């Protein structure tokens, strides 16, 4: 969907220090070569299927459908992937690519820890070193994932600069990459950053919508009417949307984290409250003040607690192909509990944002309509935080 190389409308580009330019050019060349290499694709497919457990199920949520008494609801079960989220799709692709490029070390940022865990896992599997940058605040609210990364042999570096959350972890990973490029690949976790990352990550995540399409055609004999996914940087949403972009009958709905509400400062809803800017290597929408200072955003969900959004989403918004709605902490927590109690599926608090919007939308739609919700990850990691949100103090 790119027009000019690395651009999505006005968005995208390569706004990075000169020190990194040859590294991203080298990555672009390697990716162009391997993406059409049958041997590479065969190896990647084998890893995705045999190791990560793909294809993931498209599950008909019958009880939820009955209770909401509107559109038929299907859940794309990315939570069932190895490591517990969609992040593994991208990481296996990038790690394999990095290995082909002769890199021996992976660095990554992580918010909720899902991308960090996936990267640590891939590094272990492929025999690579791994360093993960994680905001200090996130290491505290996602302590279990920190332990998992360490158990997998990764070094976890708590980032104390700025707001000590995802954006600062990205900044620190970028700084580290400028420091050590020769043997190191920056395994970026979302459809963001400088070209070619938004394209690479989207392509590796596009397996989600490829499978949804096949599965829904098999089950229902037609395309869905809406695909709903949560959006931070936007990798699971981009993966779930991508193969439907050309199907204009399919509504694509991204759910941003509104935090305590889009009329408060404690929000991370970029499309709803941000404006056009340049940050973390890309032009896109960012939460920022009138002088371009990046805003200290907030969401209960560490994975959506990011002040920007991937450039292809920004473009899908501009051309009106996708809609971006805001979902508050409270709505997401309710949906987290609702899906657990209704279907026996505990979604990640990130994915619960998408569930929350589906709960509003489904009753407004006819019973012959179909909604697919991308359950991007599982919620085990969030149980302690949600318990605390409900005033119950449990130990992890």
């Amino acid at each position, binding site marked *: 969907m790119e027009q000019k190389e690395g651009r999505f409308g006005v968005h995208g580009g390569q706004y990075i220090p000169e020190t990194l330019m040859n590294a991203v050019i080298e990555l672009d060349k390697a990716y162009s070569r391997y993406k059409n290499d049958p041997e590479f694709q065969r190896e990647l497919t084998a890893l995705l299927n045999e190791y990560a457990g793909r294809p993931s199920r498209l599950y008909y949520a019958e009880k939820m459908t009955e209770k909401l008494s509107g559109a038929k609801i299907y859940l794309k079960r990315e939570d069932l992937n190895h490591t517990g989220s969609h992040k593994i799709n991208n990481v296996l692709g990038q790690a394999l690519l990095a290995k082909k490029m002769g890199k021996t070390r992976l660095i990554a940022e992580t918010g909720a820890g899902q991308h960090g865990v996936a990267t640590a896992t891939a590094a272990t599997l492929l025999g690579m070193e791994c360093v993960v940058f994680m905001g200090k605040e996130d290491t505290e609210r996602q302590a279990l994932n920190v332990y998992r990364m360490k158990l997998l042999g990764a070094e976890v570096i708590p980032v104390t600069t700025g707001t000590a959350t995802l*954006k600062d972890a990205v900044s620190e990973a970028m700084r580290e990459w400028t420091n050590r490029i020769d043997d190191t690949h920056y395994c970026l976790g979302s459809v963001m950053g400088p070209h070619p990352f938004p394209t690479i990550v989207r392509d590796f995540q596009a397996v989600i919508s490829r499978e949804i399409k096949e599965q829904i055609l098999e089950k229902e004999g037609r395309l869905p009417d809406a695909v709903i996914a949560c959006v931070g940087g936007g990798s699971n949403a981009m993966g779930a949307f991508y193969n439907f972009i050309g199907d204009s009958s399919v509504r694509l709905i991204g759910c941003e984290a509104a935090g305590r509400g889009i009329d408060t400062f404690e929000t991370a809803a970029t499309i709803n409250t941000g404006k056009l*800017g340049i940050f973390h290597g890309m032009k896109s929408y960012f939460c920022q003040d009138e002088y371009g*200072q990046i805003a200290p955003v907030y969401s209960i969900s560490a994975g959506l607690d990011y002040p920007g959004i991937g450039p292809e989403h920004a473009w899908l918004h501009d051309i009106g192909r996708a809609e971006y709605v805001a979902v508050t902490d409270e709505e997401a927590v309710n949906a987290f509990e609702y899906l657990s109690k209704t279907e026996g599926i505990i979604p990640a608090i990130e994915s619960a944002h998408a569930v929350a919007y589906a709960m509003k939308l489904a009753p407004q739609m006819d019973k012959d309509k179909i909604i697919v919700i991308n359950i991007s990850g599982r919620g085990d990691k969030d149980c302690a935080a949600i318990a605390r949100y409900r005033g119950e103090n449990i130990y992890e």
Partner: protein
Amino acid sequence: MSKIKNAFQNGKAFIPFVTCGDPNLETTEQLIRAMEKSGADLIELGIPFSDPTAEGPVIQGANLRALSGGVTTDRIFEMVRRLRRDVKIPLVFMTYANVVFSYGTERFAQKAAEVGMDGIILPDVPFEEKEEFAPVFRKYGMDFISLIAPTSSDRVTKIAAEAEGFVYCVSSLGVTGVRKDITTDIGAMVKLVREANPEIPCAIGFGISTPEQAKKMAQHADGVIVGSAIVRQIGELGEEAEKAVSGYVSEMKAAITI
């Protein structure tokens, strides 16, 4: 061509950097005057950014202090206007793309030129993206200063060929900050620049803090840029930093004057 070339006509140029508004704009203004008197040939004025991805901990800290103190781009423009009543040496801004873009690139360039700035350095705008910015600044008589890095290799020639003002040669991998050793072959880097563009001065920055390092670097280039070593002094001494910073600038200028 702006008056940046004047900075390189007084022997090797000494180019200090300060973050505007650290700890407040009155101190910055005083420091800029003091540095000119102590022999600075050109001064880089950092406009603070919330998330300076090319900076090490020292300048990150200065950005944070400045922003917490309430400094804004408009207040920095007003400071430059006051400085230009007497400060004669070339001044360039160093900031991040979003600070310029969000202000409106045209509006920013016009205002910067009007208050008396001579150039701009945007470390997150490489060669591939510079056409969005460089022509706008050129229109208002300001130079868009390009950086080359130890990893630039085959890119040096095209960057140097289109360079304006001076070429900022990044001495080392990584972010800004004081370094004990600089291992990059600076001589070879500068030679490539000169082959592509014999007219353009080269200044070396990143990691330089001691007079010995400055002297060594100056043998290969036309100027030496020092940021973190000065910002660290300001971080420690705050409003009382003038004497220490003046002394340091004189010492560094003397070290590179052969």
